[in-house]
């Protein structure tokens, strides 16, 4: 994915590359450990006590690392999220050895509790540029954006509803 004028683009190819977690596995492994700890604590309230959730969190950690390594060595590009997802699907297929045990351990990790810290990071990460752009582009683009989200959701739901 090449950008034509890298110097002019603030959101340039280099920044995108920097953002891809599979390109710096060492760093990613450490940061991943930190965010897993955050999710682990977030899980206490509505999920399970720390010790009960530990195996599940470790399984998630290992799945992510495996997914990233595949994304790194794979000759064609798929987002790392797609690889992580595939690893996790395969490990929980009924035919996969030990899948029952994996599913039971993962059940200790609350689905919502893992997302909550992500949004906390997102709120803290918004840049001055994003706040400024938001003020500048203003209400028109907000309105259009909400219609875009509504359109894609209703569109997909409608097609699926007709076929199901």
């Amino acid at each position, binding site marked *: *994915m090449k950008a034509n004028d890298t110097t002019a683009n603030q959101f340039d190819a280099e920044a995108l590359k920097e953002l891809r977690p599979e390109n710096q596995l060492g760093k990613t492994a450490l940061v991943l450990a930190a965010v897993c700890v955050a*999710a682990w604590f977030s899980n206490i309230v509505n999920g399970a006590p720390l010790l009960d959730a530990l195996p599940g969190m470790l399984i998630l950690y290992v799945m*992510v690392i495996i997914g990233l390594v595949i994304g790194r060595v794979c000759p064609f590009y798929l987002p790392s999220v797609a690889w992580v997802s595939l690893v996790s699907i395969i490990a929980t297929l009924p035919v996969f050895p030990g899948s029952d045990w994996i599913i039971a351990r993962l059940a200790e990790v609350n*689905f919502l509790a893992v997302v909550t810290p992500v949004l906390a990071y997102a709120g803290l990460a918004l*840049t001055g540029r994003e706040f400024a752009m938001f003020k500048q582009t203003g209400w028109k683009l907000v*309105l259009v954006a909400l219609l875009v989200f509504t359109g894609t959701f209703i569109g997909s739901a409608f097609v699926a509803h007709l076929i199901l």
Partner: protein
Amino acid sequence: MDLKLLLDWRLHLMVIVTSMFSEWIGIVRIPLGPGTLLLLPLLYAFVIGVLFNPHLFSGMGKIIPKPVSHAAGPIILIAILPFIAKFGSTIGPAIEQIIAAGPALILQELGNLGTMLLALPFAVLVLKMGREAVGATYSIAREPNIAIISDRYGLRSPEGIGIMGVYVVGTMFGTLYFALMAGYIASLDILDIRALAMACGVGSGSMVAACSAALAEAVPGSRDELLAFAGASNLLTYATGLYISLFIALPITEWLYKRLKGNAPKEVRHES
């Protein structure tokens, strides 16, 4: 990015405290007309995060300095990965149901073209927007879509400004909007709940998370099935989304834009 900043203890401790507090508040249901709005912990976490963002209130720089806030950007992409793994684990056990729903899953990808059908006419005819509308409405403006626009028009073009605007709105409010909208539409009980779950898979980790979590809360009985469908649909979008938006969505948007503008000579853009 400097590893010291990425592992800054203030940032992660702040996130842990914020998350635990948000989880403690829990899910709040607000009846609204014929449906119900669901407020999820992730919403409170985001709002608290924004309130402590040093770029919004410079006084917060004492707690989270600006460089640390910058470091949080790339962390989001990593933080979503354990969740994606948890998500995938709902698909594996439900693989038979998913294969049975295969045709619906694949064809609903085309429903993503609904972005422009609703938003483009509104942007062009009501808001009188120019070429920004093409970039803004051809997709839901996540990273792969930005790459396409950047490649074809450049990001400082009107199309680029359009998509970046929607991208920023999506980053700031997309997750929250999807949670509210999905929960609300589910509570209206018009469309098949499984169809709504598939529609959640729009190719953004946090959006699908919020969307499917809201559905699962709205219809707790079929929680696992819904998560599995949303996850499968999202995975499919990762695989096909780039190609659908490049080869189908963008050409159709261009065509529709020309029709809506009535082939008139290019008017002066009024977007400042």
